[in-house]
């Protein structure tokens, strides 16, 4: 489905942010991209969606292919038209529009009219995954709670009828219970509609629960990858991302000497 081949990204012609990132998303899969702040996860997403260019970033090496077709030179709206929809970091809704209008903005590039049966049907589909949005559909989006806004953001991406959905930190700023709820729905959407997903997350525990495959990024490169189940058992992941000791217990900060293993990754 999506293949990112060894890309390098430079901002403002001097700042090297990605240093050879490769990853692939197979059809129908959820692939998680994990890593700490500043690892380059969002930059990788922006390279895929073409939004790098509006921020003076450039893919200087490597290629990005969607189903065998190179997309790293297309405009952002051209990439959306190919079936790549994105859920922005921190939701980024159109806060003065209503919930339903926000959802509809997701289909504006499609040829159907706003009131066509196909679009009504897609709206119903979104309300099927997020029943709460149906009651809120005439409300101004900016006044919703964080969790509701996240639902609208995911719904807006669904309205594009995407083949690949990019989710940028859907857990950001949400209470743990809500994170659980949102991730279960993401998993259901993947299972029921078969859309492939690239999920960027800092919260490795929830992401690994629903992902099929995962990559771990650090300082602009991929340092680890494998099936999600396998990564969950990995000692480094447990220690750095899940906060557990080898025995599976929560450890105290006093025992953390992660610089030893970390050294190996950075090398």
């Amino acid at each position, binding site marked *: 489905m999506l293949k990112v081949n060894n890309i390098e990204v430079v901002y403002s012609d001097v700042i090297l942010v990605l240093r050879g990132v490769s990853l692939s998303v197979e059809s129908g899969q959820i692939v998680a991209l994990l890593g700490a702040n500043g690892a380059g996860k969002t930059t990788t997403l922006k390279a895929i969606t073409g939004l790098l260019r509006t921020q003076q970033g450039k893919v200087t090496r490597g290629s990005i292919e969607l189903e065998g077709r190179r997309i790293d030179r297309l405009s952002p709206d051209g990439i959306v038209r190919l079936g790549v929809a994105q859920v922005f970091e921190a939701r980024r809704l159109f806060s003065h529009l209503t919930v339903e209008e926000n959802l509809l903005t997701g289909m504006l590039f499609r040829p159907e009219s706003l009131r066509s049966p196909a679009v009504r049907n897609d709206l119903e589909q979104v309300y099927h995954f997020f029943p709460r949005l149906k009651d809120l559909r005439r409300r*101004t989006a900016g006044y919703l709670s964080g969790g509701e806004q996240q639902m609208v953001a995911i719904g807006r991406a669904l309205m594009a009828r995407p083949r690949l959905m990019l989710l940028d930190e859907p857990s950001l700023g949400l209470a743990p219970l809500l994170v659980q709820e949102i991730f279960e729905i993401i998993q259901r959407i993947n299972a029921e509609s078969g859309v492939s997903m690239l999920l960027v997350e800092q919260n490795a525990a929830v992401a690994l629960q629903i992902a099929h495959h995962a990559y771990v990024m650090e300082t602009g490169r991929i340092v680890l990858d494998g099936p999600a189940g396998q990564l969950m058992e990995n000692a480094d992941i447990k220690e750095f991302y899940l906060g557990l000791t080898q025995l599976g217990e929560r450890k105290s900060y006093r025992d953390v000497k992660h610089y030893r293993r970390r050294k190996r990754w950075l090398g």
Partner: protein
Amino acid sequence: MNWPLVPQQVMTGILNGGTIALIALGIVLIFKASEVYNFAHGHLVMLGAFLTWWFAGAEERGGELFNLPLWAATLAAVAMAMLLGLAIERFILRPMTGQPVLAIILVTLGLAQFIEGGASILFGAQPKSNFPTPFSPSDVIRIPFPGAFNDTIILKQSLVASFLVAAVASALFILFFQYTKTGLAMRATAENHDVAQGVGIRVSRIFALSWAIAGVIATVGGVLLATVTGVSLNMATVVLIAFPAVLLGGLESFAGAIVGGLIVGLSQALVQASRNIEVRNSAEIVPYILLLIILIVRPEGLFGQKRIERI
């Protein structure tokens, strides 16, 4: 206050306000789409009126190329204005993308001078009194109204007609924005260019369309103004009246622009009902005084968008 004149002035003020509202709408449209206050809008209004006058074959020197009836001349001028709007976006504003907003605003000031110069070369600097209006100044409607001067309100037909056209145009405009797909794309783009691009909206196309529509409603406004006052280069100063209307209502609100236009028209007309000549002469600054008071109470204007901030 000359009380018997008040009902008369209220009606005249509201009717005048209709055209001001339509012109204010064009300014709000551009501001919403690109956060640029278009100082050239009044000049687009003036140019639209001149183009209509020219297409209607009202050239004094006898060298007219066209001799269209008013409605056809208006349509032709509207088409020209639409093209002009597209050209302004493509050749003047798009190269300025990424520049500070202040620089772009100053570019619109330059554009205003350019249009004024161009119009005076093409059409001559003299005011034209022969705008082909279907109404003569003596065509009036008399409405019986007890308590008014002579118990009647007298309204110029041209004023009533221009109000009706402005009302219909504004209504169409707002329906378009609220209920069509393109309207929704324009509203989304107005809120956030990056996200709009990210959901697949062609933002540059939306800008071009905004300028085309602004050109169209400026021309309609120009024709309405011309049927009441005639055509002259001075018509561009209508922006000075539209300015308080736009700010009164809140820069980003169409409803605000309409209400603002009506308030400005009304306040100017009511001042004319005063017995004091000094007060009557201050008609032009009254909307600004009102503006000052309203902005002190509501800094975002009457209908302006409050910044939605979640904490």
